[in-house]
């Protein structure tokens, strides 16, 4: 991850174990994530203060579930109302189609320079690479995204893309890539990035942003941000293209305040963000600013397949706050890049298998101790641990087969092991004899248990099982 290396480090979910090994052995990564996640957890807790958080989460979950229940109708309503507002709506079945639509919109205007607000969907479909291949330069304007892009990396967190970097590393990156002074003065670096970006906003032909909530009843696109780059991206260039997953639609304008309250607090512990943009169309004739044209690209990319399954459907409630990763003891230790996926952490582990297939992502659903911290903090109450178990089931071929690559992890050895477990646990006589024997011979648990005993001593079966102790206990009582 050294910024001095010209070789760009790439990550893939197929190498999760190796990447986790590397991250665990990297003290800088460990310290950066621990510190950042500790801070975020505290901020979130403090920001909800005395609020009845459970009731609010319940409300958030209900709003999202209601929207998903009517998803096809709401999307049509959104399209009609956006078009009525002058926002052109495009539908993309996958990332490739979305990239093509956006490129063609850019080419139609002869655009060479694109400025981007933060958008995880655009990361999901590798939009920047696609545009670059067509000779269109796409520059990230969110500070974290900008730094990550300068460093030829991908975001390590969905809200704080450069959270894996500390001040010294950022200073180095900016020094090498933009010629700023080496410093620990955060204000200096921020001001430098601001002025570098300001020029690019002015020169951009197109601004591309994401969407946090797309309101069906009004055709309004809500964009939550802190740096003003979202507002610049969506108002300065002559054309604005908003790109979003189809699940981001909500029914009513009144659905937005509770979700926004949950989002800002869950994500960064803020009561409100610095900017909240509501985009409802291009510049009108009598107006002096704003883009001449606004487009909305609605991306499916596997979402409607998730939608078909009444259990997996809960995955689509997500409002992308990142609280599940902030509270995940696994994410905190291995960081975001280790997952090798656009969305890391618990939400990534239940979402990416649908996008990439279980062949490539089979190690992600198991990379959780099922401690439940993610589900506990999720502002829309996604049952993340249950969904992790569901995907484990799919991976070993015991699910409904609704996930690409289902059954990829099934192997004879493991099936035989669980069948043996089943046999023993359903034959109580054999269980009692077997467990009693284990204690006497200490054979069930050799002292070398591979991965377990590299870090811990082996548990030793007791000389007498509970079953046997109880037999004695009963005898003592009847004798007494």
């Amino acid at each position, binding site marked *: 991850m050294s910024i001095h290396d010209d070789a760009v480090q790439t990550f893939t979910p197929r190498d999760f174990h190796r990447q*986790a090994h590397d991250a665990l052995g990297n003290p800088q990564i460990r310290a950066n994530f621990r510190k950042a996640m500790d801070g975020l957890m505290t901020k979130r807790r403090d920001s909800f203060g005395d609020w009845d958080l459970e009731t609010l989460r319940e409300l958030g979950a209900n709003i999202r579930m209601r929207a998903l229940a009517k998803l096809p109708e709401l999307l049509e309503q959104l399209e009609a109302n956006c078009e009525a507002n002058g926002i052109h709506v495009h539908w993309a079945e996958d990332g490739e189609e979305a990239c093509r639509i956006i490129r063609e919109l850019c080419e139609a205007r002869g655009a060479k320079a694109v400025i981007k607000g933060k958008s995880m969907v655009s990361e999901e479909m590798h939009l920047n690479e696609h545009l670059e291949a067509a000779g269109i330069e796409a520059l990230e304007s969110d500070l974290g995204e900008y730094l990550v892009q300068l460093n030829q990396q991908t975001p390590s967190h969905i809200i704080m893309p450069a959270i894996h970097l500390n001040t010294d590393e950022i200073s180095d990156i900016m020094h090498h890539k933009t010629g700023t002074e080496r410093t620990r003065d955060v204000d200096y670096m921020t001001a430098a990035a601001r002025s570098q970006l300001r020029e690019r906003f002015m020169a951009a032909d197109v601004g591309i942003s994401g969407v946090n909530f797309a309101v069906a009843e009004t055709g309004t696109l809500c964009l939550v941000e802190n740096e003003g780059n979202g507002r610049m991206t969506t108002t300065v260039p002559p054309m604005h293209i908003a790109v979003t997953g189809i699940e981001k639609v909500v029914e009513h304008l009144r659905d937005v305040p509770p979700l926004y309250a949950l989002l800002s607090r869950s994500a960064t512990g803020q009561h409100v963000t610095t900017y909240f943009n509501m985009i409802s169309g291009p510049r009108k004739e009598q107006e002096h600013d704003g883009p001449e044209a606004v487009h909305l690209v609605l991306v499916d990319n596997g979402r409607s397949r998730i939608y078909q399954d009444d259990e997996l459907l809960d995955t689509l409630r997500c409002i992308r706050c990142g609280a599940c990763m902030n509270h995940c003891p696994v994410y905190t230790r291995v960081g975001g890049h280790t997952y090798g996926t656009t969305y890391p952490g618990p939400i990534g582990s239940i979402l990416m298998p649908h996008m990439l297939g279980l062949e490539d992502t089979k190690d992600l659903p198991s990379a*959780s101790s099922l401690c*439940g*911290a993610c589900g506990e903090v999720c502002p829309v109450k996604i049952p993340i641990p249950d969904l992790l178990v569901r995907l484990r089931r799919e991976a070993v071929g015991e699910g409904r087969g609704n996930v690409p690559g289902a059954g990829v992890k099934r192997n004879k050895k493991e099936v035989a092991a669980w069948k043996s477990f089943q046999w023993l*646990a*359903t034959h109580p006589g054999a269980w009692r004899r077997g*467990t009693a024997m284990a204690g006497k011979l200490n054979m069930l648990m050799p002292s070398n248990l591979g*991965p*377990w005993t590299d*870090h811990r001593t082996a548990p030793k079966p007791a000389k007498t099982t509970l079953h046997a102790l109880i037999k004695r206990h009963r005898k003592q009582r009847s004798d007494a």
Partner: protein
Amino acid sequence: MAPVKLYPPKPDKVYFYGTCLVDIFFPQAGMDAIRLLEREGIEVIFPDDQTCCGQPAYTSGYQTEAREVARSQLGLFEQDWPIIVPSGSCGGMMHTHYPQLFAGTEDEALAKAVAGRVFELTEFLVHVCRLKLEDRGEPEKVAMHTSCSARREMGLAETGPMLLSKLGQVELMEQERAAECCGFGGTFAVRHPEISAAMVEDKTQAIEATGAKRFVTSDCGCLMNIGGRFEHQQKAVTGEHIASYLWRRST
């Protein structure tokens, strides 16, 4: 948070579901739990045909095998008595996941009935027995690790510490990031051993930093993991199931 749970009055009889880890590795904890219950005037029935709740197969995705194991346990509790489980993890499996596991099958009603009668041991001692303890031990500092299943799946973050607070000579030491997982997670510890090891290392450090030479927990998975790490590092911190600790100090 689950709706407020209403607890029954103290019953004459309870079932005791020992769990496989207690049965094989920590049988004394099971006996101590039984003695605590018996001291409260409750007759403890231990169904001899109990084996394992099926959780290891369940969390590994082996639904069919988990269901068959769970099915063999459902029939062990014929009478309407509470089922006491000295583990939040197995308790959570039976309380929360049995109804899911049998949804739409002929055993659904039975699974729900059993699930509704499952109580984790510390929960039962606090809320149903309203346990009083006379502390006969020396003054001691102790740390507690509440399992994630007890804490989150069963909503029982408080019952362990409440029991310890009834021991007059015991000082419960607060540890940093007490709510964080110890890294056990059943097969997680084997499938992702390095991540699990990093987690248990942090947990043991946090416990050690409290100055306590003893930690207690209500789950034998965590006990095996945290205790095994302390032992591996040859640290002078020992772990114990909370049932044994309570029994030992009050007799």
